[in-house]
């Protein structure tokens, strides 16, 4: 029974399935009862209750118990209880909790607004202010003491690890970047190093910096809300939770020797064989579908991929501006709109490429290695 359960969890945590589940869970939990056809909305509406403190608390308690129970599995414990991985496991719960908490506060304020009552932040302060000494300073002081205690207890319970001395002749398998960069290391699987290691990290930083200048929504400034800024919150959380944190989870807990995937209850077998049969889009179309040899001329060879990429980055934004996102285009103006589109589409290209890889074994959509142009 338990073995069967572990097997199905292992099966479900293969990347395409795990990612699909994550995506579905993300949208359903973010917009319970709001997305899709009527029957789906009816079906997911009860999930709104997770934003009630009690129900949310129960969900977290159940997840916590499941996690602790899993630690009795030797393979699970071997990876998750590594001293350096313990904080990462804690991070997953912390991120989940605080995302939930922020959304919960937002929904509560939205409900108060709808009932024409003052929102929490307003009710708490009214117009008055309080003295920093003692009100704020005491909170800070208490916070520092509690954290000091917490850190000392943590340090006594968990020894900092040290492995064998550095040896340039012996590459460990797997070799991993520090955990907070594992999202970037994951991107290396889908993009060439100069894109995954230099361009995309740069764009993440630029994109974060651009947020306040692109987001022109005057509402939701200085208080929790969900209703007043749904799209912004959805985009940010998609990048933060589904891409950044999710890829760290994958990279830390599910990538084993030879960068192969392993389920959480699977032994990290260095001899696990995974056939590598990645093919480029040009090969799929010319060779597999049209049964001809690849054309010599690179432009002709890549014509399909180039068309797709051009359509994605160049044709899609104007089209969206004309039709589905017309309101945004008018509110933001062309510059903001197109910067937002470029950043957003670049971000979205990562999950698209991941899916193409997992389902079609697609390597590159466009590949002109002569000029480092591989997408």
């Amino acid at each position: 029974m338990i073995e069967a359960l572990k097997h199905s969890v292992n099966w479900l945590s293969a990347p395409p399935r795990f990612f699909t589940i994550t995506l579905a869970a993300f949208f359903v939990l973010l917009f319970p009862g709001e997305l899709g056809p009527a029957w789906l909305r009816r079906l997911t509406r009860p999930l709104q209750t997770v934003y009630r403190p009690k129900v949310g608390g129960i969900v977290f308690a159940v997840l916590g118990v499941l996690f602790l129970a899993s630690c009795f599995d030797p393979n699970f414990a071997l990876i998750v209880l590594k001293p350096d991985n313990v904080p990462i496991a804690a991070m997953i719960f912390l991120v989940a909790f605080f995302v939930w908490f922020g959304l919960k506060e937002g929904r509560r304020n939205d409900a108060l607004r709808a009932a024409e009552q003052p929102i929490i932040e307003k009710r708490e302060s009214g117009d008055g202010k309080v003295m920093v000494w003692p009100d704020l300073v005491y909170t800070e002081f208490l916070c520092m003491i509690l954290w000091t205690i917490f850190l000392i207890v943590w340090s006594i319970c968990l020894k900092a690890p040290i492995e064998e001395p550095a040896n340039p002749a012996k590459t460990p398998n797997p070799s991993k970047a520090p955990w907070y960069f594992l999202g970037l290391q994951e991107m290396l699987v889908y993009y060439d190093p100069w894109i995954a290691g230099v361009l995309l990290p740069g764009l993440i930083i630029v994109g974060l910096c651009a947020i306040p200048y692109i987001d022109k929504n005057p509402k939701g400034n200085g208080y929790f809300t969900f209703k007043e800024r749904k799209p912004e919150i959805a985009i940010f959380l998609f990048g933060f939770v589904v891409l950044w944190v999710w890829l760290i989870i994958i990279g830390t807990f599910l990538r084993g020797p030879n960068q192969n995937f392993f389920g959480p209850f699977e032994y990290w077998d260095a001899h696990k064989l995974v056939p590598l049969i990645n093919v480029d889009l040009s090969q799929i179309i010319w060779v597999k579908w049209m049964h001809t040899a690849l054309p010599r001329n690179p432009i002709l060879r890549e014509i399909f991929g180039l068309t797709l990429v051009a359509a994605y980055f160049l044709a899609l934004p104007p089209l969206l501006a004309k039709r589905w996102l017309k309101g945004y285009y008018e509110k933001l103006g062309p510059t903001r709109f197109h910067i937002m589109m470029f950043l957003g589409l670049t971000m979205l290209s990562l999950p698209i490429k991941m899916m193409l890889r997992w389902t079609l074994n697609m390597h590159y959509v466009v590949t002109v290695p002569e000029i480092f142009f591989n997408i």
Partner: protein
Amino acid sequence: MAVLKKLWDYTRNTQLWNSIFRHGPPDTARNRGLVVLTNVFLHLHPVKVRRSGIRLRFTWCMGGITFFLFLVEVATGLLLMFYYHPTVEYAYVDIVDLREQVPLGVMRELHRWGAHAMVITVWLHMLRVFMTGSYKPPREFNWNVGVLLLVLTLLLSFTGYLLPWDQLAMWAVTVGSNMARATPLLGHEGPGSSLLKIGDISLINAGNDARFALLGGRFVGAGALLRFYVLHCVGIPVVAIILMAVHFWRVRKDGGISGPV
């Protein structure tokens, strides 16, 4: 009790005490204001704040915790520096010694777990700022300062990762710094670098590209260890402290912690 009270009252009237604290006991609004105004550290705060802005449920205290963790890292890091030599011969054994020769030693643990925690709390702080829309005008610039602090926090952690000089350290940094090889123009395996040449002599090669500059060598060796040590202990913290000062100053100048109008 009475004796203690007497002693306390006496202390408060000495010239020494009055030379340090230029106000009476903080039991009146005026003196409480003066406590904050006349203390350079507390002066980071305004005298009065919006009540909702100091609630845990609003800030989660995450920015404050991040700053506190930074201070913990400074304090414990300083102590570690007394024992640690950033050389290939000594780095690893120094760490092993700290582990095995110091009874009840927790400095290395505090430093390592504090660093992990700081990375996590920076993210959560950013999440909180986003969820409350606190990056909106007039706080756009401070959000940007925050993004730089986020990058610096990650770099601090990354440079520190190498210092134990064990297998984990060396190979994590090898994986991480390999990406610099592919920097456009400046990495010897990056796009465009082959264009930078004079006649037949190419300007960018493994011995002078972006990765070489980062590592001080063609691979992660003695040069990298020294560079990372200097950046970790001096370079990045100095920049981070300056930016934090700007960050806190701007929180005040942008009207204190955000709140509904």
